[in-house]
C-alpha cells in the first residue's frame, strides 16, 4: 500500500515547517468553505492551482484524486440547478434550469476543488509522521496524537494481513457474488482481521513496556522556524484576507 504519494519530492512547499502549514491552511480553507461568491471561488481555485504547480507533484495522480472527490459534486449537478428557485434559463423537458441554481452549483464545484487542491499542495507534501509531530506542537491532545500515530503505523501491517487472507480465499476458489455465502465469508474475514489486530496490539504494548514506555512520547527533535516559513505564512494569510473582503 503506497499511501504518501505526494510527500516524496523536493519543492519549496516540501521544505516548509509542517506547523506553519497547518496554521496557514486552516483559516484559508475555512474562509473558502463559508464564502458564497463566484469571485472567491475562482480566485481561490487559481491560487490553489499555483500552489500545486509550485509543489511540483505528479499532476496525473493529483487529477485522479480530484475525480474521486468530484463524485459528490456530480451528484449535485444532477439536482441543484433544477431544484433551486430563481429566474429560468432554459428548460429540459418538464424541468427548468434556474440561474441561481446554476451559479450555486458552480460556486460549490469551485470551492470544493480549490480546497482539495490546496490541501494536496500544502499538507500532501509533508510526511504523515512529521504532520503528526506538528500536531503535538500545536497542542492537539496527546492521547489523540498517539492514537493517530499508532493507527497510521499499523495500517500497512493490517493491510498485509488482509492481503494474505484474501489470497488464501482466492486459492480456495472464493468468488464474490450477491449472496449470503459471500456476505458471511467477508464478515468472517473482517472478524479475523479484528482478532489478529487485537492479539497484535497486546504484543505491541508488551514490547513498549519492555522498552520503558511510561505513557508519554518524549519529543527530542524540534522544528525551527526559518525565513521562508514566515514568507509562506504572510502570502497565505494575505490571500485569505483578500478573500474575506
Amino acid at each position, binding site marked *: 500500500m503506497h499511501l504518501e504519494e505526494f510527500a516524496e519530492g523536493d519543492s519549496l512547499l516540501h521544505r516548509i515547517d509542517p506547523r506553519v502549514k497547518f496554521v496557514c*491552511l*486552516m483559516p484559508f480553507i*475555512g474562509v*473558502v*468553505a*463559508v464564502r458564497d461568491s463566484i469571485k472567491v471561488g475562482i480566485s481561490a481555485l487559481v491560487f490553489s492551482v499555483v500552489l500545486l504547480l509550485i509543489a511540483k507533484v505528479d499532476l496525473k495522480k493529483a487529477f485522479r484524486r480530484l475525480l*474521486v*472527490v468530484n463524485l*459528490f*459534486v456530480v451528484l*449535485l449537478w444532477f*439536482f*441543484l440547478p433544477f*431544484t433551486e*428557485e430563481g429566474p429560468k434559463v432554459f428548460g429540459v423537458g418538464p424541468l427548468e434550469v434556474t440561474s441561481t*441554481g446554476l451559479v*450555486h452549483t458552480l460556486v460549490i464545484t*469551485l*470551492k470544493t476543488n480549490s*480546497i*482539495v487542491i490546496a*490541501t494536496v499542495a500544502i499538507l*500532501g507534501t509533508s510526511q*504523515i509522521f512529521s*504532520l503528526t509531530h506538528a500536531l503535538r506542537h500545536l497542542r492537539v491532545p496527546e*492521547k*489523540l496524537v*498517539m*492514537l*493517530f500515530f*499508532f*493507527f*497510521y503505523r*499499523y*495500517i500497512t*501491517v*493490517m*493491510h498485509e494481513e*488482509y492481503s494474505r487472507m484474501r489470497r488464501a480465499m482466492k486459492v480456495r476458489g472464493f468468488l*464474490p*457474488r450477491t449472496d*449470503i455465502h459471500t*456476505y458471511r465469508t*467477508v*464478515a*468472517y*474475514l*473482517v*472478524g479475523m*482481521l*479484528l*482478532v489478529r*489486530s*487485537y492479539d*497484535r*496490539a*497486546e504484543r505491541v*504494548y508488551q514490547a*513498549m513496556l519492555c522498552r520503558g514506555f511510561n*505513557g508519554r512520547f518524549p519529543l527530542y527533535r524540534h522544528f525551527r522556524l526559518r525565513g521562508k516559513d514566515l514568507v509562506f505564512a504572510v502570502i497565505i494569510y494575505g490571500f485569505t484576507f483578500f478573500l474575506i473582503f
Partner: protein
Amino acid sequence: MHISEGILSAPVLVTGAALAAGGVALGLKKMDYERIPEVAVLSSAFFVASLIHVPLGPSSVHLVLNGLVGVLLGWIAFPSILVALTLQTLLFQFGGFTVLGVNTFNMAAPAVVSYYLFNYLVRRGNYTVSAGAAFLAGALGVGGGAMLIALCLVTTGEEFISVAKVILLAHMPVMIIEGLITSFCVLFLKKVKPELLEVGR
C-alpha cells in the same frame, strides 16, 4: 458517503465540529493511556476493512462498519472514527478539514447509539438475539449516518431536499448488507474472541 467541502453552511459546520469535539473528548476520557495501542490497532483493522468492496447486483459497495465499531468501542468510536477520517483527508482528500467535525459526528453518533441499544443484547443474548441485535446495529449505523447527512444538507438549504432523498434511498440496500455482515461478524467474534465485545466498557 461523506459530504465534501464547500457545500454546507457555516452554522452546520460549526455545530457539527462542536458536537464531534464533545464526543471525542468523552471518548478520550474513557480510553486510558495503556489502551491506546489496542484501540489504535483495532482502528487500523477497521480502516483496512472499510476498503473491502462487496458485490451488490451489477455494482459493488464498500463496507462502512460504523455500527460494528460502535458495538465494540462505545464512546471510543468517536476518536477512532476521527483518526480514520483525518487520515482520509490527509491522504485521499475525501471529505476534508472543514467538514471533518460534521462527518465524524455523522458516523460516530449512530455508532454510540448502537452501542447503548445493542451491546448488552449482543453480549448476553443467545444466538438468535445476538444475531438480531447485531443486524440492527449494523443497519442503524449506516442508516443513522445517512439520515444525519440528509439533515445537514436540508438545514443548509431547502434546495438540497431532492439530493438528500436520493442519498437516503441509495443507503437502503447498504443498510441490509451492513446489517448482515455486522451480524455474522459479531457471532464470529463471540465464538472466537469475546473480549472484543468488552473493549468499549
